[in-house]
C-alpha cells in the first residue's frame, strides 16, 4: 500500500473501498440460476451462461445475481435456468438455448412476466 499523500488520494481509496463493499452486499432483485451439473454442461449450459452474462453486459444491467446450481434431477430438460424475482416463487425453465435466454432476460428478468411455453412443470 502506497502512502496517502492528499485528500484526493484518500477519496480514491474511499471509492474503491465502497465498491468492494458493494460487491459484498450485492443482493439483487433478480436471481438467475443456471443448472451446471455434468448433464447441464453436456446439454450446453455453458453457452447458456455466457449468453446470460453477455446480455447483462451489453445492456449494462445491474442488480442481477447469476449463480449456478447442480443437477436438479431433470437431466432430459437441460439446460435449465431458474429465475427468482424478489419475493416471488422461483420459476424453472427447461431447454434454454442462447436464443431462449434473450427472451427470458427481456420478458421475465426485465419485464417481470414469466414465459409459459418454456416453464418446466413438475
Amino acid at each position, binding site marked *: *500500500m502506497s*502512502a*496517502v*499523500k*492528499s*485528500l484526493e*488520494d*484518500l*477519496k480514491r*481509496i*474511499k471509492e*474503491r*473501498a*465502497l465498491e*468492494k*463493499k458493494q*460487491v*459484498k452486499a*450485492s*443482493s439483487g432483485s433478480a436471481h438467475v440460476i*443456471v443448472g*451446471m*451439473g*455434468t448433464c447441464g*454442461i453436456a446439454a450446453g449450459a*455453458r453457452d447458456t*451462461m*455466457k449468453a446470460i*452474462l453477455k446480455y*447483462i*453486459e451489453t445492456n449494462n*444491467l445491474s442488480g442481477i*445475481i*447469476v*449463480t*449456478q*446450481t*447442480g443437477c436438479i434431477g431433470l437431466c432430459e430438460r437441460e439446460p435449465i435456468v431458474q429465475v427468482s424475482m424478489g419475493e416471488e416463487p422461483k420459476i424453472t425453465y427447461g431447454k434454454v438455448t442462447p436464443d431462449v435466454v434473450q427472451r427470458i432476460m427481456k420478458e421475465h428478468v426485465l419485464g417481470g412476466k414469466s414465459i409459459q411455453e418454456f416453464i418446466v412443470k413438475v
Partner: protein
Amino acid sequence: MAYFRSHVLVCVDPVCLSRGAHELIDALQDELVAQDLINEIQVLETSRIGGCADGPEMMVYPEGVHYVGLTTDDVPYLVSEHFLKGRIVERFRVKVKPAVDEELGPAQAKEVRVVLRNCGEIDPENIEDYIAEDGYMALGKVLGEMSPEQVIEEVLASGLRGRGGAGFPAGKKWQLARNVQDFPKYLICNADEGDPGAFMNRRVLEGDPHSVIEGMIIAAYAIGASQGYIYCRAEYPLAVKTLKIAIQQARNYGLLGNDILGSEFSFDLEVRMGAGAFVCGEETALIASIEGKRGEPRTRPPFPAVKGLWGKPTNNNNVETYANVPQIIINGAEWFASMGTEKSKGTKTFAIAGDVKNTGLVEVPLGITLREIIYDVGGGIKDNKAFKAAQIGGPMGGCLPEKYLDLSVDYESLTSVGAMMGSGGLIVMDEDTCMVDIARYFMDFTQDESCGKCTPCRIGTRRLLEILERICEGKGQDGDIERLEHLCEVVGQNSLCGLGQGAPNPVISTLKHFRDEYEAHIKEKRCPAKVCRSLISYEIIDEVCTGCTVCARNCPVDAITGERRHPHFIDPDLCIRCGICLQVCNFNAISVS
C-alpha cells in the same frame, strides 16, 4: 465494463502472502483462463478477511463463501467445482457461526448512535472499511482547510465536553495546551476504563479503533502535539491488539508518521498498557504510569496542559471524547450542538447493568431522562419488579431513588442531586437491593483501589468500610450514621485526587435517599431488603410444607431436619443463610424474615 457474475477476494495481508496468496492468485487466473471462465469471474486482492492463520484466505461472492487453506494444487478442482458447476467445496469452507452480540444490540427507538455508529458494522481490523464510512475525511478536511485555531473554535462551538467523567469542555482544554509555548507537546488518550460493569470505551476500541485514532490526530494538530499515547488497561487484550493493528495500518497509509496526508504535520501514536490500577484513570497518576513511575496522582496545579508528561504540555481526553471529534468536523459544530441540552451537548454511551431487561451498551442524546433510558431503551426492570435506585457514574457516582427518574441526564443535573455523569456506568437496582450493602460494595472497591498516597483516602476509606461492614453484620452502633457523615466530609474534602474526593459519594447519596434503611439495620437489626445475611433468618411455614425433603437434601450444612410427608424444620444455629432452600422449594414454604 465487463460484467462479472462472481468476485473472488483473496487476502494479501503479510501472513497470507507468506503462505502463498500470490501463487494462489496466479494459479486461479491460469485455471480460469484454462476453463474459459476468465470473463465471468474476477479475482481481486483485498486485506484481512479472517485471522490469516490458516491462510491463504479468500471470499467468493455473491455466495459469500469463505475458503481457507487452499494450495495451488487445489485450484483446478475448486475452479471446476465451484466456479464452473457452482458446487461449494465444503472441505475448504469456513463455517460461520451466527454470532449473538450480547453487548450491543440493534439501536432502540430513543438511541442516537454517533460514537457507536460503526461498532459491529465495520471490520475493525480493516482500515478500508473505516475509510468507506467517511473515515479520515475529517482529518483530510482539517489538514487541508483548517488552521489549528479553527479546529479548536469548531470543537468549542460544538460544546463537546470530556466524556471521562468531569465534563470539562474539550475545546477549552485544547486551547490551554495550545497556548503554552513549550515543545514537544504530548497527547494522551485515557483508555483505562475501570468502573465496575462499564465497557463503553472497550467496545469503541475493539469495534472502531480508527475513530479514536483520527480524533487524536485532529486533537494533536490542534494543540501542536507530536507524539501521542493511548493508555489502555492490560485487562483489555483484544482492544490493545485491535489498536496496534489499526495504528500500523494508519502508518502504512501515511495517516500517522511524518507529513501526514502530504501536509507538514507529523504525529505518531503508541499504545501503553496499564497494569489495571483503578487510580491510573486519574490523569496525573496515568501520566506517572506512562513515565514508568508508580501510578500515583500528584497535586494540581500545575495542570497537565502546562506540565504533564515528561514535564511538557499534555492534553488528555478519554476514548469517547476523541471518537466524537471526527463526526463534529465532518457534520459541523451545529449538528453536534443540536443534540443534548443547553450545557451538555451531543450523545453519551452508557453501559446498563443490573436488574434491567436489556443490559448492554446504549448511546442516547444527553438530556434524556433516566426513566427513558431504563424503561424505553433498557426495557424496564427484570421480572416485573419495582425500581429502587440507579447508580450512575461508577464507584464515585451516587445512587438516585425513584423520585429522580424524570431527571434530565446531563452533567449539571446529575451533579446537583449528588451523582455524576462519570464515564457511563449505569447500574439499575430493583426492590430486592439493600442500599447499605451497595454502599459497602462500592466502598470495598474504592478502599481496595486507593493508592495510599494521601492519608484521608488511605485511612478514611478503610474506616468508612469498617463502619459499613459492621452495620451490615448487625453490629451497627448508635452514632454510626453521624460518624459516616463526618468521615465522608473529611475524606471528600481532603483527598488528593478524584478517587478519594468521590469515594464517599455512594455513602452520601444512600444516606440521603435511603436513611431509613441504615436506621433499620442499626436500631432494629433488620435488613428491609432481606439481603444482609447476619440480619435475616429462614423459616419453614408448617401449613405450606408438604415434607417433600427437597430442602433437606439440598441444604449444604444439614441444618434442615424432618420426616417425609411431615413439615420440616430449619435449625437457626446451623443455618448459614445461603438461601438454597428458598430457591429449591417448589411450594413457597420458606419464609425470610
